[in-house]
């Protein structure tokens, strides 16, 4: 065997390997993709079924006729818009407060060199490991004594003081910016507050966008806190309202699926509209590892 045929054999077996790999990857992708897509299909198709096609064997895959009116009924049954308004009443201020306060605090942890800073920062990092359950009971007692039960204050007021994770996220971003920026401003006699507001804040926009997005989605989905603090039906946010509706009308699957779809669509739109910020946010949570 000459050297030539040897290398061409090797090349051929490599090529074969590559083909096997591509076929295998594609098959696995399609199989997994199918499994991921099935629940979505089930969600949408059920939400459009007339009641008498929900429990039919064999299964009705495509509803006949397509009942768009389920969405109208779901919105009325569930008080969807009341819940939506409540969710926004919590999520919008919580998002604004968390973003502003976290960036403010993050500035103090990154752009000013003060004695004890790193020790305090370690405390901040370690609070992220604390399970919510540890502070849950005493916080409830405090808010109860303040008369804040069945109001949104227990959910919103704490966001005025910054979220540890978001402070961390914005700080990491601020640390990566050159220090000369503010040194020059300081020599010019700029106050620290102005350096923060006029120089640093505009530069941290990507980190702020990520923070705002993650906070908003977090409050859109939040279940445990409203479950603990909100008792009146009219004050429920969407997540809690949907769960309560589920409990009461467990067999109304078409309406339940329509409501679940309506609760999901805004987040999916948000995801497609802000995909870059979105993915970076998720990936950033991993970078600290």
């Amino acid at each position, binding site marked *: 065997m000459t050297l030539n045929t040897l290398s061409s054999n*090797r090349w051929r077996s490599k090529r074969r390997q590559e083909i096997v790999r591509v076929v295998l*990857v594609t098959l*696995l992708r399609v199989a*997994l*993709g199918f*499994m*991921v897509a*099935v*629940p979505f299909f*089930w*969600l949408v198709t059920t939400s459009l079924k007339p009641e008498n096609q*929900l*429990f039919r064997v*064999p299964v009705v895959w495509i509803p006949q006729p397509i009942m768009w009116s389920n969405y109208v009924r779901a919105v009325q049954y569930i008080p969807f818009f009341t819940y939506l308004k409540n969710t926004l009443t919590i999520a919008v201020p919580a998002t604004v407060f968390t973003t502003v*306060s976290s960036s*403010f605090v993050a500035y*103090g*942890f990154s752009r*000013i*060199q*003060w*004695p*004890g800073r790193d020790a305090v920062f370690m405390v*901040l990092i370690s609070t992220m*490991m*604390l399970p*919510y*359950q*540890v*502070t*849950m*009971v005493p916080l*409830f*007692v*405090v808010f109860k004594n303040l008369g804040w039960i069945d109001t949104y204050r227990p959910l919103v007021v*704490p966001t*005025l*003081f*910054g979220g*540890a994770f978001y402070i961390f996220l914005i700080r990491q971003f601020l640390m990566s910016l050159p220090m000369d920026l503010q040194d020059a401003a300081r020599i010019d006699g700029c106050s620290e507050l102005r350096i923060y507001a006029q120089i640093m804040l505009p530069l941290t926009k990507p980190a702020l966008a990520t923070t705002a997005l993650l906070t908003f989605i977090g409050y859109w*989905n939040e*279940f445990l806190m409203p479950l603990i603090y909100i008792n009146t039906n009219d004050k429920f946010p969407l*997540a809690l309202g*949907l*769960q309560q509706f*589920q*409990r009461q009308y*467990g067999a109304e*699957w078409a309406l339940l*699926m329509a*409501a*679940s779809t309506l*609760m*999901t669509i805004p*987040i999916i739109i948000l995801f497609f509209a802000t995909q870059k910020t979105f993915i970076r946010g*998720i*990936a950033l*949570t*991993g970078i600290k*590892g």
Partner: protein
Amino acid sequence: MRRSLRKLAMGLFFVGPWVIGFLGFTLYPMVMSAYYSLTNYNLVNPPKYIGWNNYIRLLQMDPQFKTAIGNTMYMVLFGLPIWLFVALVMAVLLNEKGKLTTFFRTLFYLPSVVPTVAASVLWMWVLNPQYGIVNTLLKSLGFSGPGWFTDPKWSKPGLILMGAWATGGTMIIFLAGLQNVPEALYESAELDGAGWWRKLVHITLPILTPTIFFNLIMGMISTFQYFTQAFVISRGAGSNVPPGGPLGSTLFYAIYLYQNAFSYLRMGYAAAMAWLLFIVILVSTLLLFRSSGKWVHYDT
């Protein structure tokens, strides 16, 4: 001296909001919850000191506590590894360029943006024993599907399946980690005649170990606190059903803790449970960090 004092003042000025929040919303509640855990407290009467009795009762006399620990460990030991494995497989499958890849990335990620409550309600219906799509598909293949959330033996596997569907966030973190693998390593391995499997096992996975470690730690902490999905699904079984069913098979630690606090108003008992949870999380995290020297490779 004067300058550093000014810097301290400026630093504290900016950090101040968080410090106040930390004192009010973290440190003070921590101290109080440690105190409550040594008391009998029902919100109506003032807390009554009872020493270690809550802890003793939990560890020695409470069968539901044992159930809750068993269920939670099941999720940590079986659920979490499955979720991480699925996320890792997805990430490896998607670590290429191309239009199709973008499509599949979006598809695989999409379930994790579905709000947890909506996803839980959806999965109750997806896994409905008679009319759900999973059992329907199984039937068309000639299998009779299990009772899922109505069967104590299948409720946790059902939750694991649902979690595997929504593991896109972890997948994205794996993908970010995969992007760190230097191309040159693959090229030199190819010159040595390594196929894709050997490249995966000998290059990709070792470089990915810090990411695996990170996802493992974060996943473990959140799995110990597993709550919303099981709460929604088990309570959805009927309008007056307490959470944790069927037959206590989804009574997870956080659910039993919540019940003690807000259904039975045993605040001291719940606080003791919270501290035990915290200790377990701390110790497991420490053990994982200790073990990491043996299998996590930094700076390759």
